[in-house]
């Protein structure tokens, strides 16, 4: 029974959310925030495969999200819309609600392929050096995308809104919320199943003692390729969803700042704990949204108290002071994160009566 608790709870919550959105109880803003929570959850949980379970330090996760975002956008524009880039749509627009999963799968596969960029050097490199390589990979991906003029270059790429509208023309539903929920479910199920199988535990073996792993018959290079590809592929999924929620992508939205957000969520939740990272992703997204209101409020307050010169306005850029500050405080006071390598059920054993993660 407990084994299925998550599998039951999740669809129920999903249906409730969609129904609420459908009857108009959630306004557009709340809907967008909820969707972004889902996307951030996928992004953070996927990063956790490498940074948590495998114990490597990947700092360029945004790059894979970028690949997924662009690949997904190009696919859906080519599939469902008439565009200058691809000409007439490949499939009738009415097929969009049914064929959209193909877009998501395609985007994930494309991003997974790019995961090899980091997986191959990881054979001989570890720790700090690998971290530097991942940052470099992040920059490479962004520069390449920015320099391909056919897909908009630095101006970005749009047209996905029409694909989303094509879905809404078939049935008036909060489509992107639905796809995000489905994506999150697939993502968490994949990682949960992987990490409970002997095959996936090879990742933990590599993390805990790589020499022993190699000596006991584990092909460590293949394990690393697998972990990096799963991780980057799921990041690609989050990217494709992101692109369709916004209807517009720009390579710079996936730069090192995005990767940092991922790191904050993973380290906030506790490395190697999927449930912890999920909670952290929810809390973090809400916190960032909260800053949107807190910063202007703080601005008014400081101006009223004459602590700021009248010519200076506290802008949203300050978000990038608060988020890294959170990371510093976290590393200083609770480096193991909220749950620290343990699942929710291990921290609160009583929960086992209701739910299991393993």
């Amino acid at each position, binding site marked *: 029974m407990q084994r299925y608790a998550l599998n039951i709870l999740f669809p129920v919550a999903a249906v409730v959310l969609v129904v609420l959105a459908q009857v108009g109880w959630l306004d557009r803003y709340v809907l967008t925030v909820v969707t972004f929570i889902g996307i951030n959850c996928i992004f953070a949980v996927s990063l956790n495969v490498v940074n948590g379970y495998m114990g490597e330090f990947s700092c360029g996760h945004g790059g894979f999200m970028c690949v997924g975002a662009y690949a997904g956008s190009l696919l859906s524009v080519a599939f469902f819309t008439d565009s200058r880039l691809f000409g007439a749509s490949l499939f009738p627009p009415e097929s969009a609600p049914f064929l959209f999963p193909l877009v998501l799968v395609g985007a994930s596969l494309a991003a997974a392929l790019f995961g090899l960029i980091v997986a191959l050097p990881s054979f001989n490199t570890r720790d700090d050096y690998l971290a530097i390589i991942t940052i470099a990979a992040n920059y490479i991906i962004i520069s390449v995308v920015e320099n391909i003029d056919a897909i908009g270059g630095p101006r970005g790429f749009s047209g996905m809104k029409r694909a989303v509208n094509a879905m809404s023309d078939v049935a008036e539903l909060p489509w992107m919320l639905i796809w995000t929920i489905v994506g999150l479910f697939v993502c968490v199920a994949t990682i949960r*199943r992987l990490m409970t199988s002997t*095959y996936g*535990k090879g990742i933990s073996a590599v993390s805990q*003692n790589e*020499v*022993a792993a190699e000596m*006991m*018959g584990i092909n460590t290079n293949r394990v690393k390729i697998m972990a990096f590809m799963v991780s980057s592929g799921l990041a690609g999924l989050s990217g494709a969803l992101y692109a369709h929620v916004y209807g517009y992508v720009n390579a710079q939205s996936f730069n090192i700042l995005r990767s940092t957000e991922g790191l904050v969520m993973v380290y906030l939740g506790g490395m190697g704990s999927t449930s912890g990272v999920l909670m952290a992703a929810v809390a973090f997204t809400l916190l960032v949204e909260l800053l949107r209101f807190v910063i202007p409020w703080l601005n008014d307050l400081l101006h009223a108290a004459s602590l700021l010169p009248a010519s200076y306005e506290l802008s949203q850029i300050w978000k990038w002071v608060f988020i890294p500050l959170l990371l510093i405080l976290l590393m200083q006071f609770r480096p193991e994160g909220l749950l620290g390598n343990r699942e929710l059920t291990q921290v609160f054993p009583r929960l086992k009566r209701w739910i299991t993660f393993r």
Partner: protein
Amino acid sequence: MTPLLEIDDLTQRFGGLQALSNFSFFMEDRELVGLIGPNGAGKTTVFNVVSGFYDPTEGDIRFGGKRINGMKPHQVTALGMARTFQNIRLWNDMSVLDNIRLARYAWLGYGFLGATLRTKRYRQAEKAIEKKAREVLEIMDLTDAAEELPKNLPYGLQRRIELARALAGNPRLLLLDEPAAGLNSADVEGLIRQIRWVYDEFKISIWMIEHQMKVVMSLCQRLTVVDFGRVIAEGTPEEIRNNPAVIKAYLGDDTL
């Protein structure tokens, strides 16, 4: 009959350091032999080359008639060779049961899709792995520790878990790197009994590195002595005990 393990003129250089020079060795199936020598003689290097951790600079290694130099450790393991380590190398943050389970990794029989889609093959494979792991735990008297983390267990038990993990791969040849390191004399007695029991019970061949003479003298049928990366003597424990070259290597030249 082809010998189980044949090493011909193995030379291993690390930069300017010659760790092994023209090391030759062979062992038949079902032998229990020892490799001894003073500290830094190159014993562990031999094991590391044989198990694929280092690529030999020169020389040939054949395991069951198959040339294995240049193979990766996981490929050598899959051929039926397992080992333990001088300093224990367990996966400390997963249960003892998982440690044993992972020793079956080379024979999983399913991959990423199997694991995530939970195919029939996956379920059968996991069931077989679980059964095998439980069996090994039972045989090695570790059932009570199955759910514990190795890092929380006493040293002697950790050694036994490492041995169990090596045996879970059904090896033909077991390499033991100083199994008695860090054990007190009472434990050493137990270890000797245990190794002999494993040798009889699992019908395997064992090649062991050991410092404690008591262990090798009472267990091994044959000994190889290395010093400065060369074989300086070979023979039965009795012969080795009285070999002047060996005494010199261990105690130094008496013409000081």
